[in-house]
């Protein structure tokens, strides 16, 4: 129960951060940070994968509504949630998969690699759907890579904030 409340709070926080902070920091077509992916990254490892998928769809639809985009966010988050069990399995191993996959739970380098793969999947789906213009594939790939970097830094910084908060309590 305690955990459900915590994740509900995380959901609200990432959506608000995305809509009111990170969407307005985008000064160019590169450097788009999608901090809301943090919610998908940080869901508990033992959570049923179908539940993760439904939560991802809810998150995507919320973002679509706020950003005024039709389905792009939902398609990207659902794909990310679909790939998540396989990626978790590859990085963590099935038997030790429990707890929250954050810096503390996974360790720094493991977490960064796990997060990069998830963010990359999300951004690839998002930017490909957004441009759908294969003539400009080089430009889109550049956007995917720069966006992934920005999101990773943003998520890392946000997590530091949460960890500081935790250690005080």
């Amino acid at each position, binding site marked *: 129960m305690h955990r459900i409340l915590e994740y509900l709070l995380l959901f609200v926080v990432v959506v608000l951060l995305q809509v009111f902070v990170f969407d307005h920091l985008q000064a*160019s*077509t590169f450097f788009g940070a999608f901090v809301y992916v943090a919610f998908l990254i940080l869901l508990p490892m033992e959570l049923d994968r179908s539940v993760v998928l439904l939560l991802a769809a809810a998150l995507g639809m919320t973002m679509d509504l706020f950003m*005024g985009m*039709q*389905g792009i966010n939902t398609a990207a988050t*659902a794909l990310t949630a679909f790939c998540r069990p396989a990626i978790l399995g590859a990085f963590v191993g099935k038997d030790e998969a429990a707890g929250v996959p954050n810096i503390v739970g996974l360790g720094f380098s493991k977490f960064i690699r796990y997060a990069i793969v998830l963010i990359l999947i999300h951004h690839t789906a998002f930017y490909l759907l957004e441009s759908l213009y294969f003539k400009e594939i080089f*430009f889109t790939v550049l956007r995917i890579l720069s966006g992934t970097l920005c999101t990773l830094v943003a998520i890392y910084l946000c997590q530091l904030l949460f960890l500081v908060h935790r250690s005080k309590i």
Partner: protein
Amino acid sequence: MYKFVLFLKKIQFLLLFAVIEVVALHFYANGSSYNYAKFINVSNYLVGDIYAGVSQVKQFFTLGDENRRLNREVSELRSALEHYRATMPEVNMPDRLLDSLHYAYVPARVVNNSLGRQQNYLTLTGDMREVTPDMAVVAGGNVVGYVVERSDRFAVAVSILNTRFSTGGRIKKQSNTEKESSYFGSIRWDGHRTDEVTLTEIPKYAEILPGDTVITTEYSSIFPPGLNIGTVVGSELINATYYDVRVKLFADMGTLNNVVLVRYTFNREKTDLEERARQHTEGGSDDTR
């Protein structure tokens, strides 16, 4: 039957994924520019007021600049008015003349504006009673976009930084010749830089110099002719047949604040007439008279 249920349970994850993706992609595939704006309008019912509040706070910090800009515009308009007064004294504007005014102006405020996407939109607020779709959005005399959808309190406009945006552009000579160039093409955004658009299909015998001004043409039923768009920064010959000209926008799209919406009052009459003429020729094509 029991086996079937077991089977469904086994592939439940895959099935769920497929359903979600199909629904999302269905919405995505049916998204025209028009639908898009409609969708944003719906989301404005939910979050438009929050955006308006946030933008009001942001606006507070640019009040000084905004005031100076408005002051400059007022003095320019005043001197233009004086000029008219001096050249034609004692003009009483008859009502009949008012009827023939070509453009109607409505002030509005930008509450939400994106730059990082391929399809960028502006959300506007203000007195929306006079606002209709197809009104031009102008900031400080520069083209910024056009209105596509409106609700009671908000309007959504396609930004010039939208890959679906398109209008005519003409090159105005900067040099002493004073003669307006008759070369025109269409203005498009390629989705790359947020301060540049492309003026495409300029004939290859046109003389294009960096620094030339690009303005709107007389052929648009949305934008009044002669509005500033940007300055030429470079050009590229495509297939040895026409130029693609890179145009640096006059408007700073990142700091849009107060804008003016312009309606061409004869738009309806013009498009209706054009439509009738088209029907006429199409109907007459199989008529051998």
